[in-house]
Structure formats: C-alpha cells, structure tokens
C-alpha cells in the first residue's frame, strides 16, 4: 500500500498542472467548490490516478469525494 502523503502529493502535482496554476494547494481544498473542477475534470483526475497507481476507482464513489484528502484516502485503500 502506498502512503497517504505520497497519494496527496501526486494529486497536488496533477492539480498544479491542470487547475491550480502551478501552485500546490492544501489537502483540505474542495475539488469543486474551491478549485473549480467540473465533474468531468474530477473523473479525468481519477483516471490519471488510476494509471499512476494501477488501481480501479468506481465512479459511483465520486459523490463521496469532496477534498484532495478524501480522494487520497480512498485511492490509498485501493492500492
């Protein structure tokens, strides 16, 4: 299993490239309300994480993911 910190760091790096204008945002950032991701953007972020960690993340669980920390914890359990 990968560490929570490694997972958060990967999400932060991906978001810095796509939505945060290069800056690293804190783990408690809300993906939609604070970072402005659309639901499609969240799905694309998850696809990138699935490939990075070779896991399968069901999109039924999208509703449970609000923050970077939520996403990191869930991805971590899948590895």
């Amino acid at each position, binding site marked *: 299993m990968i560490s929570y910190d490694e997972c958060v760091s990967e999400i932060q790096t991906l978001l810095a490239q796509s939505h945060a204008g290069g800056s690293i945002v804190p783990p408690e950032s809300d993906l939609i309300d604070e970072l402005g991701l659309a639901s499609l953007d969240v799905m694309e972020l998850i696809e990138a994480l699935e490939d990075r960690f070779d896991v399968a993340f*069901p999109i039924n669980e999208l509703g449970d993911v609000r923050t970077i920390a939520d996403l990191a914890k869930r991805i971590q359990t899948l590895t």
Partner: protein
Amino acid sequence: MSLLQKLDAARDFQDQLGQLGVNAIGATIDVTGSATEGKIEGKRVILAGTNNYLGLTFDPACIEAAAQAVRTHGTGTTGSRLANGTYAGHAALERELSVFLGTRSAIAFTTGYVANVGAISTLAGPGDVIMLDADSHASIYEGAKLSGAEIYRFRHNDPADLDKRLRRLGDRCARTLVIVESLYSMLGDVAPLDQFCEVVKRHGAFLLLDDAHSFGIMGETGRGLAEALGIEDEIDFVTGTFSKSLGSVGGFFASRKHDVAPLRSQIRAYMFTASSTPSVIASTRAALKRVAQGQALRSQLWRNCQRVHEGLTSLGFKLGAAPSPVIASLMDSPEHAATAWQVLLDAGVYVNLVVPPGAPKNLSLLRCSLSAAHTDEQVEQIIEGYAAVAQRLFDQPRAAATAYG
C-alpha cells in the same frame, strides 16, 4: 440550502446560454413539410441537424402505414406492455426486428433512451461491474447508475485502455458488462468495434453495443457497424433506436447469443411505462422494410457525407472525425459556435449548436447531420452556409468577437 436553489442555478445556466445571443436550448421548428426542409422563426431552412439519416419521416409507405394504424387502432394504447399495451403490431415488430438482426429475440421500448436505461439497469446489478466508454450517451450513464453495479470508465474509443482496466478487475470480468456505441452522436466518430470485441472476449466479459447511430446506415443490409465488420456474432447484446434511420420513436434490446425475452418481466422501464402508439409501431415496421432494401438510400447518404466533409474541410473547418452522417465542426469557443449557428440559420441552414457541458471534452460544436433525402442542391446550400460562417469567423474574427464577446 433550499430545494428551490436548484431552480435558481438552472435559471442562471439558461441566462449564461442566453448571453451567447441565440436560443441555444433549442430552436422551435414551426413546420417541417418534408424530411429536409422546415420553417424556423418564419424562415424556410434546410434541416441538417435532425438525425433523419435515411429521410424516412416522410416516406409515403411509412406515412400511409401510420395513418391506417391510427384509424384502425386509435391514437394510443393507454397502457404498458405487460398490461393492455401489447397489440399485434408490437409483437410483429419485435419478430421482424429479430429476423432482420438475426437475434434470438428482441424487445421494443417506447424510446431509445428507455431501452438503454431498462436493458443496462436489468442486465447488471449490485455486485456486478459496468465498464463504459467515457463518451457514452446519458442514457447509458443513467442505466449504469440505476443498476447498482460498480461503474468504471475507460478512455473514449481506446481498446488498450479498456484492456488495462479489465486486467485490473481480474476474475470480476466474468461479472462485467462493457458498453460501447457504434457511431458517437456528437463527434461522428466510429468505435474500433472489432478491437473492443477481441479485448472483451479475451477477458471473459460481456459486450453491449448501443447501435443507435449506425443502425440502418452501415452494413450491406443496414444492420449497422457490426454487420459492416462481419462480427455480429461476437456482440452479446445490442440496443438501438427507431428515432434515427427509422424516422419514428422507440428503441430495442436484442441479442444473437442470449435470449433476452424473459427479461420482459424484470425490466421496469418496460413494465411501468406506456407502450408505443400503434401509428408509431406501424411506421417503424414500414421503415424497417425500407432499411432492409435500402442500399440506394445508404449509397446516397454516404455520397452526401463525403461531399459535405470535403466541402467543410476545404473551407478550413476543423472536423471531429472522418466522413460520417454526423459532421461536427470544432469551434474555438461557445461564442464562436453561437455566432456560426446564427450565420447558418440566416443562410437557411439549421444545424445543432452544442456547447459545454453538452459536448464531450468541453468542446463547442456545430453538429451537422446529413440525410439520404438531401438533394445535391441542398448539399451545396449547406456548404454555402458554412462558407458564410468561414467568411465571418475565419476572415474577420474580430468582428465576430465584438458582436458576441
């Protein structure tokens, strides 16, 4: 947050679309009169955004069949298929579909949307897995969600990505339904169906093909993309619609490999909605006969597709895919797409305006759909309409930006 705040959010969204300067939610077609012409805002236009691929909405035999049925059987069945809503025509249509498609059985639904929601939500359930193409139609997403199965997406039209994701599922593949479409309705691109079949088979999963847009227009006899590729026996399940090449409304669910008929008593979207009106069933049956003998119509349709694709390419439009009955022009922004849509309408050509979030990958599109019924003159008028757009947007981009930006 109040329940009614959703209404405010919806109103805000409509206002944003309104700022594009056009009625982006959908123009009202006042009169049609033929498969290819109508009147919008009092102006005669060529209809090039109606999915009426074979032009059968005004086929004399289809109209006569519908007229006779409405006189004989009335305007509606006033009941669901399992109650009083199965007439001899409904059963005959299902038999004829089965014979045409070579399937073990076929179930007819009231719309194509309902066919997908009903079939998918019943085939898969809790504990199962649905793996769907990222660009799937809303009805596929809805059916998947309703099923209670775990849902995964794979990258659009990417068999290697599907392969990778099925590998991650391991032995759960035996409980996995993979869903792809044949021809995608927004960009007009065609699935690499033979490669998908190979991947699905190798992993021991099941494949459902939504053939809404290639049914009637691909394959020697119009049975769609799988017929054209010679792989119909490889497909586990197929769904389709009557509202494109068949020119009416309705949908179907069928299979060559499995008998789907027993699912009638399980599919809630079949059991608890009113059945199709007899006139719709009658025109669909007449249209199915025309499709089966429709080689000339299909040839004409594909000639029209080639001509418009060539014309738009030479005008400098960036197009979504190789020639197909859906020709999508990729526009730089929603504002440019809206300007272009209005220029086309002013030039007497109606196409579909597609802006985010309605289009895949946040694209803004002008979606033109062609018909076998478009005459050579109409095809040239469609291209001339796009020439007016090119002149407005490509030669004078600043003027367009000022008008709507």
